[in-house]
Every structure is written in structure tokens, then in C-alpha cells.
């Protein structure tokens, strides 16, 4: 109980919000509305899982919004070139992994600070995309692109199933595979991990590649919700993903965090927007409330740490 206090308290907050909605706006739980809310949250969940890995390894990546945009365009162009959807998916994930590897090589290989490297790549990928596409949408995509050609309801379910499978994979890796354990060790105490014979540089590189791959997958799940691919997509994604991870109890100082907490964090932040509509509160409040929740989570963490020391 005590060890999972953080995850449980976020889940409880989410439950409280849902309970409030159940009484005041039962239509929130209508099948179509619920599916839309969840499919909007799915790409964020996948990106936030990737961010959680990087933050647990005591790094940060603020370039994921730009990676997301590049991967979306790549997915769109591959589909337009007539490739089958599994290849398109693989292409998006590979593209993300390459972008992540670029960050990882600079950060782990040259030992540069991750905040600076990813700030630079954030701007670079975004501007390169602007120069390449000149703001042009990828249009006239084949039938099979939007909703994987399953129609809206089928597509939404596919997105949720895909997100759930990848989430389960990440949860399993972090808990049941040695590599997950190594990420925690490196993030808790890099020098200590090195002295235990682990190779922190290699781990650091790997988390960035994994994050890139996950962002590529998230970009795909997001892109297929629409008929065209917008090159400006993914703006602000890094802030949402980092916010959700922090709310879910991932310590920004590394070494601590649980992916179930990230799931609750993503759901909590994603429900705020739709909830406001149903509670008839002006939508401008969405960001303010999300910010307040993040602040509250960090403050609670700080208060707890101070009490311990």
C-alpha cells in the first residue's frame, strides 16, 4: 500500500473525477464519447511511457513533439506511396527510433546534457520539416490509411488495442526484464551502476532509441485518426507527456516511477478537457487545471521528501 501510494492517489483522483461526472454528466460515459476521449489519450499514453523511461534513466527529452511530427509525415508519405499499412507502421517506428538514436548518441556518447541536445533537435526537426514540406499537408491518402480502413468504430478499437499492447509490453519490460531493472539502476545512481559492472552509456542510448520508437508508434496512432497528415502536429506534446509522467509519480530526479502511475496520469489529464465541456466550464480552463494538477503532484512529492529527510 505504502509503496504504491502515489499511483493509488492519482487513480483515486481520477475515480473521483469520474464519479463527479457520473452524477452531473452521465453522457460523458456514452459509448462514442468515451471511445473518442480514450483514442485521443492513446497516443499521449505511448509517448508518456517513452518519456517515463527516459526520466527514470535521469534524462529528459523535449524534442518528442518534433519527432512526432516527422514520424507522422513519414507515415503519411509511405502510405501515399502505396505501401501496406504494416510497413507504414514499421516505417514510422523506425523513423522515430533513428531520431531517438541521434539524441541518444549525442547524450550517451558525447556526454552532452540531454536538455540542451533535445532543445536543439526539437527546433532542428521542426524547422527542417517546415523547409521540406512548406507547411503542406499530406493529402489524398489511400482508403486504408484513416482508421486502418476499418471505419471509425473499428479504427478506434484498433487504436485502443494497439496502445494497450504496447503499454503492456513496456510495463513487462520495465518490471520483468533485466534491461528494465538496469534503467532504474542507472537513473538512481549512475556511478553506482557503473561500479556494479553495468554500462550506463549503453542504457542511456537505449532509452532514447526506445522513446523514439514509441513516439513513432504514437504518431501513427494519432495520424490514422484523420484523413490528412498535418505537419504542425505534435506541438506541445513534450509538455503533456512530461506532465503526465510527473503526475503519475515518475520522479524527475530519476530512478523512481511506475508505468501504471503514468497510465492514471495520462487518463486524468486527458479527461479534464472533455469533462469541462460536460460540466459547462469554459474550455480555456483546461490548461490551467492541468497545470495546477502537475503543480500539486510535484508539491506533494516535495513535501513527502522533506518530511523523510
Amino acid at each position: 500500500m505504502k509503496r504504491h501510494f502515489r499511483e493509488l492517489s492519482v487513480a483515486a483522483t481520477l475515480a473521483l473525477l469520474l464519479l463527479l461526472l457520473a452524477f452531473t454528466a452521465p453522457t460523458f460515459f456514452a459509448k462514442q464519447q468515451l471511445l473518442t476521449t480514450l483514442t485521443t489519450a492513446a497516443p499521449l499514453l505511448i509517448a508518456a511511457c517513452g518519456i517515463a523511461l527516459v526520466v527514470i534513466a535521469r534524462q529528459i527529452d523535449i524534442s518528442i513533439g518534433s519527432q512526432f511530427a516527422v514520424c507522422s509525415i513519414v507515415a503519411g508519405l509511405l502510405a501515399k506511396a502505396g505501401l501496406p499499412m504494416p510497413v507504414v507502421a514499421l516505417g514510422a517506428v523506425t523513423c522515430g527510433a533513428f531520431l531517438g538514436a541521434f539524441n541518444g548518441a549525442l547524450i550517451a556518447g558525447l556526454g552532452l546534457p540531454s536538455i540542451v541536445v533535445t532543445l536543439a533537435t526539437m527546433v532542428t526537426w521542426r524547422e527542417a520539416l517546415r523547409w521540406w514540406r512548406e507547411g503542406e499537408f499530406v493529402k489524398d491518402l489511400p482508403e486504408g490509411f484513416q482508421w486502418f480502413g476499418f471505419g471509425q468504430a473499428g479504427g478506434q478499437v484498433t487504436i485502443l488495442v494497439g496502445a494497450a499492447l504496447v503499454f503492456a509490453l513496456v510495463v513487462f519490460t520495465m518490471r520483468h526484464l533485466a534491461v528494465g531493472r538496469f534503467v532504474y539502476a542507472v537513473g538512481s545512481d549512475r556511478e553506482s551502476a557503473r561500479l556494479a559492472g553495468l554500462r550506463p552509456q549503453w542504457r542511456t542510448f537505449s532509452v532514447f532509441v526506445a522513446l523514439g520508437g514509441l513516439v513513432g508508434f504514437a504518431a501513427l496512432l494519432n495520424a490514422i485518426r484523420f484523413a490528412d497528415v498535418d505537419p504542425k502536429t505534435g506541438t506541445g506534446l513534450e509538455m503533456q507527456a512530461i506532465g503526465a509522467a510527473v503526475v503519475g509519480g515518475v520522479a524527475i530526479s530519476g530512478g523512481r516511477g511506475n508505468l501504471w502511475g503514468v497510465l492514471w496520469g495520462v487518463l486524468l489529464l486527458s479527461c479534464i478537457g472533455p469533462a469541462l465541456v460536460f460540466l459547462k466550464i469554459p474550455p480555456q480552463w483546461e490548461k490551467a487545471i492541468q497545470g495546477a494538477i502537475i503543480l500539486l503532484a510535484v508539491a506533494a512529492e516535495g513535501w513527502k521528501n522533506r518530511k523523510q529527510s
Partner: protein
Amino acid sequence: MTPLLKLTEVAKSFGAVQALDGVSFELRAGEVHAVVGENGAGKSTLIRIITGAHQPDRGTIEIAGQRVLHLTPATAHRLGIACIYQQPALFPDLTVAENIALRFEPTLAVRKINWPERRKRAARLLDEIGTALSPDAEMRSLSMPEQQLVEIACAVGASARIVIMDEPTASLTQQEVEHLFAVVRDLRRNGVGLIYISHRLEEVFALADRVTVLRDGKSVGTRQVRGSRGNEAQSNPSGIDRGPAASTETLSESELIRLMVGREVSQIYPPAEGDPGHVVLSLNGVGCAASGIKNVTLEVRAGEIVGLAGLVGAGRTELARVLFGLTPANAGEIFLNRQRVVISSPHEAVAHGIAYVPEDRRRHGVILEMPLAHNVTLAIHRRLFPGMWLRFGAERRLALDYIHNLAVKTRDPDAPVSSLSGGNQQKVALARWLATKPKLLILDEPTQGVDIGAKGEIHKIIRRLAKEGLAVLMISSDLPEVLGMSDRIAVMRDGTIAAILSGRSDGHEVMAVALGQK
């Protein structure tokens, strides 16, 4: 004459460790008062109490005859106490003049700075202590001794009456040492009282008027070094050598060493049994330019505990880091079980069967946030979990085995290591490495900061491991521990092994080699 500083029965403990236990100390104006003692005798704690960094648990502090109740760093500064550390505590990005100004200009945030005045004063102070440093030089461009001179200029500028020097010559060349001594004698002539901490006994005899010996947090005694010659030396600025009156000294070097060590091995150490086996580790002229290790030749056999003694800075931890691939050797040969090996990373060292339990346990020995079980298996994933799948059952059983075997005081392998006491954390660090089934175990200060009960247990474990055929290289600053545990003692000095003594040597012999008196 009222002493500048008088400590009476000062005591200070950190957790279970009694760092100072009723120490009385007196500093007069115009004297150099040396403080000597083994590593961990309480010298640093004494300094920190005088500079106000630590509050004593009991005892009184009088400065110029006035009792001071709560000495803080700010009051200490105001009362004219200055400390020059081995590693000067200066701001590397500011200039010399700015660093000096920061020490004693009024700290009003909106006050206008008089730059020419600031520069002029810095120049005057630097001139006063006889150095040609430019006030405009950036601090980071200066060498260590130059930075120390700036610290001294700060002390002079703040009109410090009490100046503490902590191992000031540790990184200086002979010429720089002589310049420093001249500055020290100048200060003494001006009536400043100096507390001089040093491991180098020849400096103590060259400079000090009196010497206080600390041992195990107690003052063993204060002796006159040169009697009335202290005044004589003031009129003889080149008096670095001990001069013709050396024979009339009230204290000889060997007596001083005896005072520093002079303790019976009171604790019972587990006895050695049987003869050591084959040579596990053999070093032939090993050196590492980056960490100052040179020409180390040493053998460690299976079943043998070799103690690595020496003073702080003699290169013991550095040698361990070379063997573990943290700062790889760039000279000489390393053999493990007669096979020549090159160890260029900890990863390789582990693969070769070397285990290293580092000195700073809280930082590097264990991962505090992680559960005990995870810490125990961290170095053996490949063996315990083929295919990299974690098997929690096997992990838990292994952790429970070690909890039982090493008598770790907890029942819960899932408890974070931070919830354990120091001695138990050390056992977890040990368990991690024993789990790798190493050939060679390097222990760096295995019982530092561990309470006396756990210490005895750890000693028994180490001896048992040796009996089971492990080769153990044990770094320790705790002289009785080295003497009690080691089958052979390698004494390091200046980055190399100065002598290899038998395990039956006495502390006097070890200290004499460590201090360079032999």
C-alpha cells in the same frame, strides 16, 4: 597572556561515531600550533568546530577570553577565524580581486561597487604576503598553491587572528612549500595564531612551536616542539631546517609517532588459519599517470588478506580504481590467475572476477532507493537470469540467503536499502559482490562509519571469505583493523608501495613507513 582560542572538553558525535571525545585545546597569539593524528583521529571535526561549521555536543569555546555560546561560520568569521583548506573554497569564475572582496566587503546587495578601490586593496594584500599575482587574474587560471595564497590574502585582509591551515602543502612542490612557510612565519611574527594540520612530520618540526596529538577523538597530549626556540626562529626567517639546537628538542619524531599510534589492538580479530594458496593477483610495475599511481608491484594469494595501509592521498583508493578499470592502468602488467589481463572498464573487471566494494558506500556501494534484493542481484543478472528474464523467486531466495549468511538486520528483501543502518548497508554491498563469486575482493574502508558491533561481524565475514579461498585486498585507514586483519600489509606512499610488511608488524612500523620516516 590570554590565549586566542581555548577549547575545553569539547565533544562531538555523528550517529554512533564519537568523532571528538572531550578534547581541550589552546592557541596562543604568535604561535604555530600543529595538530597531528592518524586518519579519522578527529582533526577535521576539530577544525569544523573552530570554524563554526559543527556545533559541539558539549564543552566550551573561548575566543580571546570570551566564551562563545553558538559559534556559527558567520560569527567565526567576524571574530577573526579564517581557514585555508587543502582545496581552496573560492569562486573559479571570479577574479582574484573579486574573490578577496567577497570575504570582507559589506554584503549589501544594492551597494555601489568601488572597482578601483577593490582592485587596489587586493593588490596591496597580495603584495603584503609577498606574491606577484595579478588581482585581475581569473581564479580558475591559478594553480593550487596560488589559490592558497589568495586564501591567505583573504585571511590577512579580514585581519584574521586565528588562521587554520588544513594540509596546506599536500599538493605543493618543495619551492612552493618554502614560500608558504615564509608567509606563515610572517603571520606568526604579526601575532596571528596558526593551527597547522599536517601529515608531514618534517613540516611539523620545521614550523610548529607546539603540537597536539589526537587519537580516536581524544587529545593524547600537547608537547613543546622547540621550547623557546620558537622565538629564536622568528628572527631567523630562513630557519626551515631544524638548526643546531635539534638535540635539545623536547620531542623526537619517533616519540611523536608513538603518540599518534600508541594504542594496543584492543579488539579481538578473527585469527588467520592455514597457508595461502596460489597467486590470484599479481601486479608488475603497474602505473596510471592519470591517478598518480606508479610502479606498483604486489601479489595477493587465494585465502590471503593483504591490508593496504597509508595516509589519505597516498593512492590506495586510486590503486583500487586502477584494478577495477575505473582509471585503467597505462603501465606495467596485471595478471589474474597467471593470465595477463587488460582491465579497461568495471564491466571487464567484473567479467574477470574482480569485485570492488567502494569506499563511499552511501554513494556508490549500494543504490539506496532500490530494494535490497535488487541490489544483491545487480551485478549477476547474466548468471541468475538466463535470457534476461527476471525470476523474482530466485532473486528473493538469493537475497534471503545473504540476509541470513551475513546477518543483515531485516526480514524484508523488498525493503529499500536506505531503510537499513550503515553496517547493514555495507553488508548488502558485500552481498552484491559475493554473489558474483569473485576471485579477488577489493574492500575500500569496509568498516568506515559502521558501529562497533557490526564492525566485528564484518571482520568475521571477511576472514571467513578468505578461508573459503578468496583473495582479499583491504584498504583501511583504521590502523588496528589493518594490523588485526591482514596477513601481509602493503604500505603506500606517494602513489606507490613503500614497503610490504608482515601481518605481525606493529603500528609504529606501519606509521613510520606511511609517514616516510623509514
